[in-house]
């Protein structure tokens, strides 16, 4: 039996001042699934994400990615397997040109020469940005920068793609272009978001985090239609949006 793409078991994490950010979080994701992670500000979403590739750790509990435990000895391979796209593309794109930035990850994995160039080209093509390789990141529009940020991670050929607030600050057209890209990727995807319609559009399954614990785990459509659950977790649909209309 193939191991799950992601398995989080009894993960607990407290910040140095003693506040718990995660308490006994367990879930697993099968390969190819797209899962939304919802929760109010401060629910522990980002802390959870930073555990997936070992940037945070040290507390009780374990994370396995494709059967490999995230720990110091495997860190390089874990960081290849888990690609995190951070919220602000200006944090993610730090090299002078787009191509150099996309090459940063694979170069750290030891790729050089033509293999590296191909990896860069393929990743930029996958997000429809093949023509901007020599441009400087700050000369691109925000939506383009977000897509290039996805490419920087795709170039490492990850098995699990994690998008942190992918639609924040995007105009509706850029938002749709990004969802087109995500839909066509043959990857396991986790989307951390406050954009509930986006979660519904892309992710059949949703996890709701509240105060560091998993409050719900189920089909997105059912969770979004459950008003009591939504209110209890400080989640709100946009005005006029009725999740029940999308029920199968």
């Amino acid at each position: 039996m193939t191991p799950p793409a992601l398995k989080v078991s009894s993960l607990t994490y407290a910040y140095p001042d003693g506040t718990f950010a995660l308490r006994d979080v367990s879930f697993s994701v099968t390969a190819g699934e797209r899962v939304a992670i919802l929760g109010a500000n401060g629910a522990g979403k980002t802390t959870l994400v930073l555990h997936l590739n070992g940037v945070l750790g040290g507390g009780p509990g374990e994370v396995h990615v494709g059967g490999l435990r995230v720990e110091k000895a495997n860190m390089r391979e874990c960081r290849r397997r888990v690609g995190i796209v951070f919220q602000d593309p200006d944090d993610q794109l730090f090299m002078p040109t787009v191509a150099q930035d996309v090459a940063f990850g694979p170069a750290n994995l030891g790729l050089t020469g033509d293999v590296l160039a191909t990896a860069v080209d393929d990743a930029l093509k996958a997000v429809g940005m093949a023509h901007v390789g020599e441009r400087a990141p700050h000369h691109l529009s925000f939506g383009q920068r977000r897509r290039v940020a996805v490419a920087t991670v795709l170039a490492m050929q990850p098995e699990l793609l994690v998008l942190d607030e992918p639609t924040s600050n995007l105009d509706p057209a850029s938002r749709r272009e990004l969802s087109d890209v995500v839909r066509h990727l043959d990857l396991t995807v986790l989307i951390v978001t406050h954009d509930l319609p986006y979660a519904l559009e892309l992710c059949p399954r949703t996890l709701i985090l509240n105060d560091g614990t998993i409050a719900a785990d189920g089909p997105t459509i059912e969770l979004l239609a459950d008003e009591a659950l939504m209110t209890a977790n400080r989640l709100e649909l946009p005005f006029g949006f009725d999740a029940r209309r999308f029920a199968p």
Partner: protein
Amino acid sequence: MSAGHSEHLFVPGSSFLHRIPPQCKVASLVLFVFAVVASPREQYWAYGAFAALMVVLAAAAGLPILLLARRLTIELPFVAFAVLLPFVAGGPRRDIGPVSASIDGLWGAWNILAKGTIGVGATLVLTATTSVPDLIRGLERLRLPSALVAMLTFMVRYADVITAEMQRMRIARLSRGYDPRWLWQARAVAHSAGTLFVRSYERGERVFLAMQSRGYDGRMPSAGGLAASTRQWLAALALPAAATVVMAASWLARS
């Protein structure tokens, strides 16, 4: 945020100067400036020759002289200092029209003006024919320590981001009716500067996190510059060679 300051010096083109590898151009510039600075100030003609070399170079690169002249204004603060020099320096003086100027000061002013202008001019030709990423590749190939290359890289990338952040803070300040213009209002500006520093520091931490997540282990990957051929090196070094000949001739003429 879209119009980058770091790119606006580069003038796209396909001249010989544009195509020569950046490391050759940087080395050539440094040697050229050494030759200029080492020439005796009394030999006016030598500076005419250096200036002529600059003009030929700019023409070869297809750069409009007017554009270079406009960019030369960056040296104005130094010019102002040079103009002051004859009036504040000591030693024997001589009258120029209604004012009296120090002879040493006059020589000093001429020295700064001539050497400075030619040095800045040569640098302008380099920056107009070399994009910033290429410049960094060139410096890396010239074995500039990797920590410095990384710092330059980040500076180029984030100068615009931080300028934009500063601009937003200024607009926010203006929007709340505060427009500090006088020295005694420096407090608000200092507060903004502090905030900007903290924000940039936090951004640095987030960037580091993003780098770690993509496998950064303390070593930046190479910027990927290409090696230059012997012919390219020879072509690039023709400029400092010519300048060295002028310098040698000016010393001979002086003795």
